[in-house]
């Protein structure tokens, strides 16, 4: 195979006058420059020394056999015996010529290798290098046959056929181990003409030497060897493989190969299956009402955070009260959890968005648990209701939810958004002007005290009593909440929203939220805002609570969905909704 490739390059090279090929049987190649000498005994070249070895510039010794199944004596007789016979004959006939020998990577110059072939190859190499000849040894590994070169060894032939599509990739990845018959031939010519920096050359050297010649001819303006039509299949397959791998990596990153991965799409889909028709609406806290107002900062927060809206002053707020439901037409009496979302805008464009619930702790601490809880609330299309046992099962498997469950069972119900405390639940870092960070949570504490109402009587107030109550109260004047920041002590959990911090933690009243006006969501300024709790000003950073990233990601998905579903959003004239 190598001999065939080398012969081809020699015949193609305009600088080569004559190629003498010593063969056992006449070959199939015919060329005006080729002189074939048929010789039977490769252990003794003396009879053809004058015709084949005298007056030559170089001998390219490409003969070799596979060692598999051979005794050391037999392998030595061929590998060592024939090579040295040829080299000795050359030394006597043309002592100034070069002898270029094809060996294998792994040949052992110490001759002590445990692998027989490596010992014999090493012994042969050493014997050659001791001769006063210009000897160069190519230690090759993987040789890609090109231009129709074929190995004599059937198992190699099969291997090269199978490996052909991978060859360009292998050449790129392992430049020191892969070459091809064309480059070997060109490198031999290059070495015969100009020598090489050292006698032992590996595939990388061969590739460089083989290309030297190539680039010299093209630089001189000689016609390039047309290669476009030679064996493009391997190269094409290599390109296809690379493109396919890139596409698979992309698709994998997109999650299309991992149906079990918890994604924002899956989360929001689950949130959307909790009854009613949520299209066009937020997928959680789907029913709500917009408000506007001011945040009047006392300046007390400025020492613990550099957030611009904590400096003394007044900042506009666009907010939203809502109930935690997936159904935008749910009755207000059905929702245990109520929420307040705010967007405080500073003069320089910095924003603080926050979504807060009226429970003192959150039900879960991880997105996975939140997903499980959401699935437990899924409505069965047959009954129109969730499976009543599903939530019990969820609680039994999630002991971290017990504080939330206890609150949900025992906390008094009220008939108003206005008398509730809304808690950030997740922790955040406040960064002060000196760059120190403080772990905090915050709450909106009402100035009205809660007016407990029996849960049973809420249903008699009508489906929208919370919105009506808010509009009624705001018609008489604004409603105030104090923004209370709670400072953690070392050891307080930063990443677990199911656990409250001890009651004795330092609290800082950083200002007053003045809610001035409310309006139906369809007309309200809040509708087109995503209350992503990670949209924070300088001076406030998310903690490591995994819920924060999950909220941000899922809220974005919900926002993308509902903005694209504008056709499904009911745009009602504003006077329909306002109570008189």
């Amino acid at each position, binding site marked *: 195979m190598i001999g065939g490739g080398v012969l081809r390059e020699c015949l193609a090279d305009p600088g080569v006058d004559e190629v003498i090929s010593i063969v056992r049987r006449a070959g199939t190649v015919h060329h005006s420059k080729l002189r074939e000498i048929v010789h039977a005994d490769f252990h003794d070249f003396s009879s053809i020394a004058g015709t084949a070895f005298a007056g030559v510039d170089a001998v390219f010794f490409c003969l070799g056999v596979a060692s598999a199944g051979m005794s050391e004596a037999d392998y030595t007789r061929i590998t060592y015996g024939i090579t040295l016979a040829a080299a000795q004959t050359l030394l006597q006939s043309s002592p100034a010529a070069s002898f270029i020998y094809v060996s294998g990577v792994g040949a052992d110059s110490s001759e002590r290798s445990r692998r027989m072939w490596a010992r014999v190859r090493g012994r042969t190499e050493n014997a050659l290098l001791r001769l006063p000849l210009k000897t160069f040894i190519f230690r090759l590994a993987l040789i890609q046959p090109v231009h129709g070169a074929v190995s004599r060894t059937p198992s190699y032939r099969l291997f090269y056929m199978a490996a052909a599509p991978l060859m360009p990739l292998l050449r790129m990845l392992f430049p020191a181990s892969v070459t091809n018959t064309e480059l070997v031939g060109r490198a031999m010519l290059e070495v015969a003409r100009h020598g090489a920096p050292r006698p032992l050359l590996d595939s990388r050297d061969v590739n460089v030497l083989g290309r030297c010649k190539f680039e010299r001819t093209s630089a001189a303006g000689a016609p390039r060897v047309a290669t476009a039509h030679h064996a493009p299949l391997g190269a094409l397959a290599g390109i296809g493989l690379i493109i396919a791998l890139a596409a698979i990596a992309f698709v994998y990153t997109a999650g299309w190969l991992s149906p079990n991965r918890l*994604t924002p799409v899956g989360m929001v889909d689950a949130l959307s299956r909790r009854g009613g028709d949520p299209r066009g609406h937020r997928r959680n806290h789907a029913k709500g009402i917009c408000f506007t107002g001011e945040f009047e900062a006392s300046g007390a927060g400025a020492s613990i955070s550099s957030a611009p809206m904590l400096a003394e002053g007044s900042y506009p707020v666009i907010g939203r009260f809502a109930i935690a439901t997936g159904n935008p037409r749910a009755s207000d009496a059905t929702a245990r959890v109520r929420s307040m979302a705010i967007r405080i805008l500073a003069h320089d464009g910095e924003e603080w968005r926050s979504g807060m619930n009226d429970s003192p702790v959150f039900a879960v601490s991880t*997105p996975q648990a939140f997903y499980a809880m959401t699935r437990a609330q899924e409505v069965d299309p047959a009954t129109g209701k969730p499976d009543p046992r599903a939530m019990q099962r969820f609680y039994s498997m999630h002991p971290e939810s017990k504080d939330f469950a206890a609150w949900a069972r025992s906390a008094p119900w009220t008939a108003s958004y206005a008398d509730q405390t809304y808690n950030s639940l997740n922790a955040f870092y406040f960064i002060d002007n000196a760059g120190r960070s403080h772990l905090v949570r915050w709450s909106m504490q009402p100035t009205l005290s809660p007016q407990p109402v029996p849960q049973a009587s809420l249903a008699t107030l009508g489906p929208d009593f919370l919105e009506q109550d808010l509009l009624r109260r705001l018609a008489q004047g604004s409603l105030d909440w104090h923004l209370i920041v709670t400072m953690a002590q070392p050891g307080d959990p930063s990443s677990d929203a199911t656990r409250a911090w001890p009651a004795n933690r330092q609290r800082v009243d950083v200002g007053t939220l003045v809610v001035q006006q409310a309006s139906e969501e369809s007309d309200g300024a809040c509708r087109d805002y995503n209350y992503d709790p990670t949209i924070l000003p300088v001076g406030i950073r998310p903690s490591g609570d995994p819920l924060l990233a999950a909220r941000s990601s899922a809220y974005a998905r919900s926002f993308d969905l509902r903005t694209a579903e504008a056709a499904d959003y009911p745009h009602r004239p504003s006077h329909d909704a306002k109570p008189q």
Partner: protein
Amino acid sequence: MSGSRFTPLQRVLHWTMAVMVIAMLFIGVGMVATLRPRFLLLIAIHRPLGILILVFALVRLGVRLRRGAPPLPADLPWPQVAAARGSHVLLYVLLILMPLIGWSMLSAGGYPIVFYGPIHLPPVMPHNDALYAVLRSTHTALAYLLFTVILAHIAAALFHAWVRRDSVFPSMAPWR
């Protein structure tokens, strides 16, 4: 343009942008598919990287208009010439359009456009739901298109390097 290669500046711009744009596409497609904490990091990279790509793309377009490109091989069949010209125009259009759509989309969605820390960019579109919805889906669709064109670009580059072995790949090769 004289010579058979792109200028060193053009090659530096090309390979820097190659890394940025491929990273950007993977970050983009990965971040919208995760709820994990890395979401926040990915989006914090995605936005400023998009602006950087926009700046690089505009600089690159200017350099390209001034310095041109080496000629394609004379023996390249005309359908391949057309594909090469068309795909490069498409690449320039997408590299400039994608960051602009991202920026517009955040504007229309009422999001702050944070470059880094306190450095914000002004909104370039009115805060509008319907506009956001169109821009958001366009951003995704064009991202898939951009990735597809980049795959075609890589395949064509390797085709020139390994099959045709012509002057095209060396003209943009990062070495020598």
